């Protein structure tokens, strides 16, 4: 086969979304939701449903944040925000969705902070009952710099495809590390603290008043309001290529670098350190995490610890000694025997949660 034929095939593959590794966004098709598919009654921000998607909310109503099955052709899911209690804008109001942070070490190809800094293009599908002008901001957390663009939702309740190209930044090098490098912030509501300036059309030091300038919608002004997004892609260059679809397992594996959850523990072996404490050390089966994670033991009832055939009364369950690659589980129980080993069982979901999000 000729070299020309190889190159033509390669180009065709790119047109079909076949070249891998273009998309710097993880879970852009909103398929993975380890935390659950719906979070209701939210009045503050956090990570709730679709993986890698942070929701930030200050003084701007109450919302449901969900993984929706409403999606444009070729997609199965979207990330959706529904207003369930309204609020008027106050100066410090803010609401943005899908604030996905990207590690600095995954952005070195942007050559940020050099004279050869690369442009990037963001493409996505968006849908809302509220037509109007919205803001997408790219935020450099290492150098506190940003750039923004507006886009319009032209037709209510209709999926629309948007592409926005942002110039490269010749200032502010991104450290080659696991820390927050840059992030995308999709603004859907903001008070005067964020809107009274001018949206930075080129990279500049962050001024809060400029961050969402041009935004003319408030997602919290009616309980009829909703906003949904999917197919989010951030890629180097000035051209939006077709969305890079991944198999579910590949996306899930990427998400687990930032969040892992454990279900259905059966026969976990713990060794008794003394008469009241037993420990075990566990390597994360889903791989090393981005940083040392925050650990949560989600216990309600129904676990057991058996030692030499005898069930013990458990009084506390803790995660101690957490590292990016391993954690230690500690049980406090009565009548243990130092040196013996026992089996711990807990048959339910979300028993251990580990959060190393940016």
């Amino acid at each position, binding site marked *: 086969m000729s070299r020309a034929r190889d190159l033509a095939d390669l180009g065709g593959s790119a047109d079909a979304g076949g070249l891998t590794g273009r998309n710097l966004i993880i879970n852009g098709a909103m398929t993975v939701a380890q935390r659950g598919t719906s979070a209701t009654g939210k009045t*503050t921000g*956090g990570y709730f449903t679709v993986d890698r998607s942070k929701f930030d909310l200050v003084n701007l109503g109450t919302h449901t944040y969900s993984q929706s099955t409403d999606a444009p052709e070729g997609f199965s899911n979207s990330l959706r925000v529904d207003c369930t209690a309204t609020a008027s804008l106050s100066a410090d109001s803010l609401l943005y969705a899908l604030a996905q942070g990207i590690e600095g070490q995954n952005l070195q190809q942007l050559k940020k902070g050099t004279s050869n800094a690369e442009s990037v293009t963001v493409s996505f599908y968006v849908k809302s009952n509220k037509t109007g002008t919205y803001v997408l901001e790219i935020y450099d957390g290492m150098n506190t710099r940003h750039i923004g663009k507006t886009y319009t939702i032209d037709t209510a309740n209709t999926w629309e495809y948007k592409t926005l190209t942002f110039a490269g930044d010749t200032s502010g090098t991104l450290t080659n590390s*696991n*820390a927050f490098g840059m992030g995308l912030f999709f603004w859907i509501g903001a008070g005067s603290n964020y809107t009274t300036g001018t949206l930075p059309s080129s990279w500049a030091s962050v001024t809060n008043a400029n961050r969402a300038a041009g935004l003319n919608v408030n997602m919290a002004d009616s309980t009829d309001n909703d906003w949904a997004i999917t197919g989010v892609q951030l890629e180097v260059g000035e051209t939006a290529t077709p969305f890079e679809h991944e198999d579910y397992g590949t996306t899930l594996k990427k998400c687990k670098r930032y969040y892992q959850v454990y279900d259905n523990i059966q026969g976990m072996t713990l060794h008794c*350190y003394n008469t009241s404490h037993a*420990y075990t050390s566990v390597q994360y089966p889903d791989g090393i995490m*981005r*940083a*040392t*994670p*925050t*650990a*949560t*033991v989600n216990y309600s009832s129904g676990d057991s610890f058996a030692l030499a055939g005898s069930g013990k009364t458990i009084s506390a369950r*803790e*995660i*101690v*000694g*957490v*590292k990016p690659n391993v954690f230690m589980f500690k049980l406090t129980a009565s009548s243990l025997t130092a040196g013996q080993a026992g089996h711990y069982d807990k048959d339910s979901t979300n028993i251990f949660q580990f*959060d*190393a*999000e*940016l």
Partner: protein
Amino acid sequence: MNITSAQYMEDMSGNNSAINATIDGVKMSVPLDPANRHYAEILRQVEAGELTIADAD
């Protein structure tokens, strides 16, 4: 991030190894790693005088 309590945890050698914190109503074990977003927020609130970390029991 609403942090309503924070207390150091000790490892088997008696050294501070993590912070038991209640964050947004959920009890969490926060590692002493500045790259962890919860620990970074705890440090910020301590610096601002908004939070005190209790000694381990």
